[in-house]
């Protein structure tokens, strides 16, 4: 691990980046409030904070993607106006966004030169880029086939293209927004090697991440953001994860969940040799075998994109597959007439989807209509053969919202008007209150604040304690470790192996997640 450059040098050199009093509002939301920060050249600076704290907004302002309402930007000590990305690029800033900004059906080369072509004709630009790409690749261990189409590359490679893009633009300040969220541990290590190499060449790097481990491992300094404000900037070597977590949330955080040992009963869910091919003809599930018993939580760990989403989709009834799935020892229809969400619900499967806004809720429907979403056929919500009973639905919604402490408890408010955590509570309330035999839960606490996380975790454990089966998918290893009674790790459409939470650790799981099998695994 690289250390910090000598203290003396830092004092005399102007900071690579200095932000003063940056504020930015999106309509009624104040995303950044009077933020000041400075980053020394040749260092890696981490930024952490809860979801919605304003990290990405701040960095997007630096990259000219948004314009700050107020504040100044200094680059290498000079005040710089950054009205657009072109200006940022001129100022030597490059940014790798959380969601890559690549043109899928263009080649690597075309993506690299886009916006910095040398003249009106393409050919000379391409030729030049081809050459410099080669030297960049050698210099920084960034090997990519320049003629390959982006859509044929894996995420790790795509990220390398993004970094190449920045370097080709001669950036000496590189911003990376949550770069490791989509990477396997091995890929992440490779990335960090590259970043260290860049720092050694004198480049300045800003790294946004949610993972305290990464902050501790690679950064020189770290800033913490909370609710649009910068709460602290400290030297990494002077701090520890507990302190950072406290700075992030504003109070002491208990990272463990209390629970009694599981009392597993009958097999509720049994999956045998499940295969699934997606719309693009790619096989996403390659023979999954697993089971969940009544009264236990099976956690599925894995880097996202390894088939967990597809597994939930198949179980939830909105993707077809081959193989066998049994509920309470009864096979369910995988392709035919009864392979839809409604039939699955009738078989006692409830489902908290991974993406509440894409799947779990209709954002423009009021809460009361969302509270019956998926269950709108149930007799209790019907007034007669033709019409639904709106009054009853509002009443039920009100009751659930009260008990799940959804704030504000107004059933007539549209789903989009609730904060992420409260949206999640609406979904959890709806699904758990069905009292299902099997609960599928995907990323239950993604983008949810600590308080809500605790509440939701308690609900899930409560359901288990009532003797229900729970299948939990999460990319957060901590969450998996603290909630699960058994852990299965998914990689590339396979279950790599199963572990018991108290007999494994993040390190071992991380290896499995990267596709490295231990002894006794498939």
């Amino acid at each position: 691990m690289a250390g910090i450059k000598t203290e003396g040098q830092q004092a005399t050199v102007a900071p690579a980046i200095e932000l003063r009093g940056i504020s930015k509002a999106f309509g009624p939301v104040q995303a950044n409030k009077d933020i000041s920060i400075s980053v020394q050249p040749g260092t890696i600076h981490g930024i952490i904070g809860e979801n919605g704290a304003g990290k990405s907004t701040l960095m997007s302002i630096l990259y000219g993607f948004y314009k700050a309402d107020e504040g100044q930007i200094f680059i290498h000590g000079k005040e710089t106006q950054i009205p657009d990305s072109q200006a940022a690029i001129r100022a030597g800033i490059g940014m790798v966004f959380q969601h890559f900004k690549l043109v899928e059906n263009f080649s690597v080369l075309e993506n690299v030169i886009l916006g910095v072509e040398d003249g009106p004709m393409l050919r000379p630009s391409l030729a030049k880029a081809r050459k410099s790409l080669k030297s960049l690749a050698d210099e920084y261990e960034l090997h990519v086939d320049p003629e390959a189409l982006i859509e044929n590359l894996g995420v790790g490679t795509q990220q390398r293209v993004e970094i190449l893009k920045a370097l080709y633009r001669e950036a000496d300040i590189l911003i990376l927004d949550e770069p490791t969220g989509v990477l396997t541990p091995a890929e992440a290590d490779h990335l960090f090697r590259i970043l260290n190499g860049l720092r050694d060449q004198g480049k300045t790097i800003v790294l946004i991440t949610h993972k305290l481990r990464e902050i501790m491992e690679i950064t020189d300094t770290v800033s913490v953001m909370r609710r649009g404000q910068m709460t602290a900037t400290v030297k990494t070597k002077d701090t520890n994860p507990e302190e950072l977590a406290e700075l992030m949330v504003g109070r002491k955080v208990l990272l463990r969940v209390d629970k009694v040992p599981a009392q597993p009963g009958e097999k509720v869910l049994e999956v045998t040799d499940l295969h699934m091919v997606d719309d693009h003809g790619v096989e996403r599930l390659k023979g999954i075998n697993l089971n969940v018993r009544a009264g236990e939580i099976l956690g599925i760990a894995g880097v996202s994109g390894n088939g967990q989403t597809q597994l939930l989709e198949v179980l939830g009834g909105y993707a077809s597959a081959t193989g066998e799935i049994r509920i309470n020892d009864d096979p369910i229809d995988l392709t035919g007439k009864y392979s839809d969400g409604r039939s699955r619900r009738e078989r006692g499967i409830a489902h908290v989807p991974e993406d509440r806004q894409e799947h779990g809720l209709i954002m423009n429907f009021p809460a009361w209509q969302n509270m019956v979403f998926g269950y709108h056929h149930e007799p209790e919500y019907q007034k007669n053969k033709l019409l639904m009973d709106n009054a009853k639905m509002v009443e039920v919604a009100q009751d659930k919202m009260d008990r799940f402490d959804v704030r504000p408890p107004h059933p007539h408010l549209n789903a989009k008007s609730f904060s992420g955590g409260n949206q999640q509570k609406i979904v959890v309330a709806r699904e758990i209150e069905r009292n299902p035999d099997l609960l599928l839960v995907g990323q239950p606490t993604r983008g949810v604040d600590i308080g809500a996380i605790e509440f939701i975790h308690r609900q899930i454990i409560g359901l288990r304690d009532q003797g229900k089966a729970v299948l939990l998918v999460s990319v957060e290893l901590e969450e998996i470790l603290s909630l699960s009674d058994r852990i299965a790790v998914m990689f590339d459409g396979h279950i790599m192996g199963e572990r018991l939470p108290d007999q494994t650790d993040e390190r071992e799981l991380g290896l499995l997640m990267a596709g490295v099998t231990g002894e006794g695994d498939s």
Partner: protein
Amino acid sequence: MDKMPKWADIALIPFLNLLIAFVLSGLVIFAIGENPFKALMTMIDGAFGSTYGWGYTLYYTTNFIFTGLAVSIAFKAAMFNIGGEGQAMIGGLGVGLACLFIPTALMPHWSIALVFAMIAGGLFGAGWALIPAYLQAKRGSHVVITTIMFNFIATALMGYLLIKPLKLKGAQESASASFPDVTNLPTLHEILAPLGISFSKSAPANVSLFVALAMCVVVYLLMNRSRLGYEIRAFGESPTASVYAGISPTKIIIVAMMLSGAISGLLAINATMGQHERLILNAVEGAGFIGIAVALMGRNHPFGVLLAALLFGFLYQGGSELSLWTKIPRELIVVIQGLVILFTGALDNMVRMPVERMFIAAAKRKDA
């Protein structure tokens, strides 16, 4: 936190949109050398100044309620059905076939004929929407383009039928024989006379108006109170979430489009059965397209559609009067229609953004 109160969304914004469209239309009238205010007075007088005017205004309104509701249902399912014109044309074919070929013995009274005609018109209209719907659902062919194509195909088909098989022998015009008298629907004159209200005898507004009003209620209940309506709206808002909830996209696309086509097809009971009493070319007169403007104006709400249909009924009848009494061609209403669609539909944000900002600013001021 909502950015705007609901009344601003359903009343203020459409009003402002409409205002801009009308001011521009006034400028157009001015630019072609006519007096916009006189033109407006002519239109108002022609559309509302007599029971004759009302009769035509309501006749057109009836057409637009049908097509407006049709477009709005498809809109709710996030389908942009531009095929109302063709669906109404083919609905007319259904109505025409029913009136011409169902033996009058089976239809002893107009009310029974009306039921047959509604079924036939609805089925034919729905059928004409089925292929675009199926292609959208199963093959992802954009429903906008396919429905436009089906409008052209419907025109060609009707042209063929009215020149060859259905044409009245010996006649010059491309039109079918007149329908049997028993299928002729009572006009407002006939309906209101027993109540002691005298209404112009010659205006075409007929009992279909009440069918249209009933359809508003039916559509309201369907969309806002029934499971199917719930599913259609859910699908329209978020297809991905609907799949999660077990709502079949294929089913919703096909059902919503067919409902839309069926209601478009019902237009024919007003135009073909009620007014012309025989099959002619182009009985629809662009009502299918106006349905788009009506649905946009009415915010896809049946009650709003009703109001917007009345507005367009007024424009249509007023526009006809304009071309009778002034030198302003009837195309003026096409211009107004274009402007209304542009400002209520495509340029909605031009008004909405500043109004929203105003409300946010006002809210902030109140908080402070």
